[in-house]
C-alpha cells in the first residue's frame, strides 16, 4: 500500500517537474516566437513604408510626365504658336500706341526704318541693332540675280534677308525697282502695283515671308500717281508708311554727328516717331548707337512696325 502511495507521489513529483519544464520550454518558445513576430511586423512596416515612398514617387513622376506631355503637345503646332505669339507681340505694340494717343501713358514709340536695301553694310547695321536689342523695319528692294544688279553681293543679301526675318525685325516692301522717271514705278498705278507685287513674290518665294507694310519710293507725297495707287493697296493687303523724322542720309552725305542731331533734335511733340534712314551710309552706321541711346534717353521705346500701327495708312 505504501509502495503504491510512494509511486503516486513520485509520479506526481515527476509530473510537476515536467509541468515546470514544459512551462519553461513554452515560455522560451514564446519569447522566440514573439521575436519572430516582431521581426515580421518590422518587415511589414518597412515594406509599407517603401510602398508609400514608391507611391509618392509615382505621383511625382506622373506629375512630371503630365507636364512634359503638355509641353510636347504645345510644340506640335509650331506655326500656330509662333503666329499667336507674334500676334500677341504686335497687339502689345498696338495697345501701347492706343495708350500713348489717349494720354494714358507718357511712354513714346520710335520706329527705326531703313530704306532701299539690302546693302553690303546691312549686316553691320543688324549687328548694332542686335547689340542694342532693337527691332527695326527694313523697306527693301528686289536686288537679285534676276534684276541684274548687285549680283556679286547676292550671298550677303541672302544672309541679310534671313537675319532680318529670323531676328524679329519687320521686312517691308519698297517696290522691286525703285525707279523714278518716265519708265519708273510711277508711270501708272498698274505698273506700280505690278512692281510692288513682283517684290512681294520675290521675298515670299525665297524666304516664305509675306510683307504687309510698304513704303513709296520717295514717300507718299513724291508723285501725282500715289492718290491713284493708295486706294488699291488695301486690295493687295498692304498699308503704307511715311516718316516724321530722318537722318538726312538719303539727301546728302553729312557727318555722323549731324545725322544724330537731325533725328534727336526733331522729336518734340512726336510721341510716335518714324525715323527714315538708309543702311548704305557708313556715317549712319556710326550714328546709329547714339541715335538709339539718345532716343531711349528721351523716353522712346524702339519697336518694329506692324501693319496695324497708327504710323501706317
Amino acid at each position, binding site marked *: 500500500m505504501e509502495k503504491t502511495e510512494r509511486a503516486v507521489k513520485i509520479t506526481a513529483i515527476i509530473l510537476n517537474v515536467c509541468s515546470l519544464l514544459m512551462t519553461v520550454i513554452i515560455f522560451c518558445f514564446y519569447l522566440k516566437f514573439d521575436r519572430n513576430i516582431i521581426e515580421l511586423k518590422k518587415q511589414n512596416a518597412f515594406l509599407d513604408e517603401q510602398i508609400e515612398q514608391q507611391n509618392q514617387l509615382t505621383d511625382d513622376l506622373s506629375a512630371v510626365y503630365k507636364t512634359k*506631355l503638355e509641353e510636347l503637345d504645345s510644340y506640335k503646332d509650331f506655326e500656330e504658336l509662333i503666329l499667336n505669339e507674334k500676334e500677341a507681340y504686335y497687339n502689345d505694340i498696338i495697345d501701347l500706341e492706343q495708350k500713348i494717343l489717349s494720354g494714358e501713358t507718357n511712354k513714346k514709340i520710335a520706329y527705326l526704318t531703313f530704306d532701299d536695301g539690302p546693302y553690303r553694310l546691312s549686316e553691320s547695321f543688324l549687328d548694332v541693332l542686335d547689340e542694342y536689342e532693337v527691332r527695326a523695319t527694313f523697306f527693301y528692294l528686289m536686288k537679285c540675280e534676276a534684276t541684274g544688279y548687285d549680283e556679286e553681293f547676292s550671298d550677303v543679301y541672302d544672309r541679310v534677308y534671313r537675319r532680318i526675318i529670323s531676328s524679329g525685325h519687320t521686312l517691308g516692301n519698297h517696290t522691286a525697282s525703285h525707279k523714278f522717271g518716265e519708265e519708273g514705278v510711277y508711270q501708272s498705278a498698274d505698273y506700280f502695283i505690278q512692281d510692288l507685287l513682283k517684290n512681294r513674290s520675290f521675298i515670299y518665294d525665297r524666304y516664305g515671308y509675306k510683307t504687309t507694310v510698304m513704303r513709296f519710293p520717295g514717300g507718299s507725297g513724291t508723285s501725282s500717281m500715289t492718290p491713284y495707287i493708295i486706294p488699291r493697296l488695301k486690295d493687295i493687303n498692304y498699308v503704307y508708311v511715311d516718316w516724321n523724322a530722318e537722318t538726312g542720309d538719303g539727301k546728302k552725305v553729312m557727318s555722323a554727328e549731324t545725322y544724330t542731331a537731325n533725328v534727336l533734335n526733331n522729336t518734340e511733340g512726336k510721341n510716335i516717331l518714324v525715323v527714315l534712314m538708309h543702311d548704305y551710309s557708313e556715317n549712319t552706321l556710326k550714328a546709329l548707337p547714339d541715335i538709339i541711346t539718345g532716343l531711349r534717353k528721351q523716353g522712346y521705346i524702339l519697336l518694329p512696325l506692324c501693319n496695324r500701327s497708327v504710323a501706317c495708312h
Partner: protein
Amino acid sequence: MKRNRTSFVLYLSIFVFLLIIAIGVLGYFLYAGKKDEIEVANSLSEKQLQLVIEDNELISEKISETDEKIERYRQDDRYEELALWKRLREQLKSQLSS
C-alpha cells in the same frame, strides 16, 4: 485520508501538466496562424512594391522618351523663332514697366 490527498495531488498534477501542454499547443497554433498571416501580408506587400517600382520605371522611361521628343522640337528652327517672339514680348513688358 492521506491516500485521498495523494490522489488529489496526482490528479491535480496531471491536470496542470495537461493544461500546460494544451496551452503550449494552442499557443503554437496561434503563433503559426499569426506568422502565416504576417508572412502572407509581407509577400503581398513585396509584390505590390515590385509592381509600383516597375510602374515607376515605366513612367521614367516614358519621361525620357518625351524628353527626347521635346529636345528634338527644341532643336527645330521654329523653336528658336517661338522663343524669339516670347523674348521680344518680355522685353517690351520690362521696357513698359521701367
